[in-house]
């Protein structure tokens, strides 16, 4: 049961204070509680230094040194039957410890088990590519470079994959604003029309709730339509919804509700 907290002033208080919500951790079990994982961990420990290992949500998490990553994944793939690299990317912990956490999510179809190999690298360090072991790492490592700016050694084609090639900044860093920096805000204007067009086009309107009822340039007034650019006085006559002009259209019959026949018998 959840611990009791007084809720009489809960509306008055700010209920969301952390900029980045830190979720509570799921309970961790010792690796010895699962014999398949225990044997796997022993095989890794025999050759490489393991910093930490535990089982969380039925998956084993193994922390290794960043310099061992290719060799550990080779061992795990070739000797321990984890034949698929289902996902890999990085986590930005720069504010906390000045490091990136890189994870490799591995799947064994034979054992029906998943393990996660993790390692830390410093802010300006590079990681070795596992693309020679898993082709799927090709695009994942490019994405990691695109989103975090982590450089990957020995990668065949390390280029941005999601953002444009001439983009500046790494969007998944926690220091990167969600709405983009100045470069992002003016990217398309600068690229298509040039920097001198900024004054003419104007800044982006980021307020999604912005409605100006006196602005007839940007906002339609459904049922009270006026021509674009008209000054709104508030006394605009109601205009009925019409599909055609009053005078009718050349060679086209105007729809007349009076003359039309409404069929009510569905089985006629």
């Amino acid at each position, binding site marked *: 049961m959840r611990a009791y907290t007084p809720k009489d002033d809960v509306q008055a208080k700010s209920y969301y204070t952390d900029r980045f919500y830190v979720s509570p951790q799921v309970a961790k079990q010792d690796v010895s509680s699962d014999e398949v994982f225990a044997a796997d961990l022993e095989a890794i420990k025999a050759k490489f230094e393991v910093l930490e290992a535990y089982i969380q949500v039925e998956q084993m998490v193994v922390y290794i040194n960043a310099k061992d990553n290719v060799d550990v994944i080779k061992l795990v793939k070739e000797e321990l039957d984890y034949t698929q690299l289902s996902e890999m990317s990085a986590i930005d912990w720069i504010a906390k410890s000045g490091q990136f956490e890189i994870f490799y999510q591995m799947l064994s179809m034979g054992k029906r088990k998943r393990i996660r190999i993790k390692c830390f690298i410093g802010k300006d360090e590079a990681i070795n590519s596992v693309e020679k072991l898993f082709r799927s790492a090709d695009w994942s490592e490019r994405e990691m470079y695109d989103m975090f700016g982590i450089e990957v050694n020995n990668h065949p084609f390390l280029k941005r994959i999601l*953002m444009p090639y001439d983009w500046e900044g790494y969007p998944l860093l926690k220091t990167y604003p*969600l709405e*983009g920096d100045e470069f992002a805000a003016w990217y398309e204007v600068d*690229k298509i029309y040039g920097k001198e067009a900024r004054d003419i*086009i104007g800044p982006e309107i980021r307020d*999604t709730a912005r409605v100006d009822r006196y602005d007839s340039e940007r906002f339609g007034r459904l049922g009270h339509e006026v021509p674009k650019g008209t000054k709104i006085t508030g006394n605009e006559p109601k205009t009925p919804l019409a*599909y055609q002009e009053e005078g009718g259209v050349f060679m*086209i019959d105007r729809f007349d509700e009076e003359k039309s026949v409404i069929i009510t018998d569905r089985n006629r």
Partner: protein
Amino acid sequence: MAQHKVNYTQNAGLPVALTTIDKVVNWGRSNSIWALTYGLACCGIEMMASGASRYDFDRYGTIFRASPRQADVMIVAGTLTKKHAEFIKRLYDQMTEPRWVISMGSCANTGGMFNTYATVQGVDRIIPVDLYLPGCAPRPETLQYGVMLLQKKIRAEKAIKSQKTKRLM
């Protein structure tokens, strides 16, 4: 035409209709609005539904074309990313004049819920827009009504004049 038994003298009629050039040109333009297929996201599904048999865009003369050189109207259906912005401008520039743009759905109008670094906050920052359709995504009925409004707008224009080039700036 004797074999078809057309009586031209009936209804005080010769097979002649008198009208102005404006009207006949605008009649042609407004009833054959060929649209450039520009489905960028989920609005594109609604646009495709409008073109399919249930809603039947063909009866408006709206036929989707895969080339900007054959299209009169660009229906921007979906989220425009900043990476794609230069291509929409290039395709718009390739369309022959007179040309029109329908911005379909919240994302194309204002960026919608994607208030992020990667989304253009409204296609009207890149190309001039004639018609904004609200909705997320708009129903095919909305797009049909939008096309009818565009037809109305085309019919209100002077057909015979030097085409005023629409530029954002």
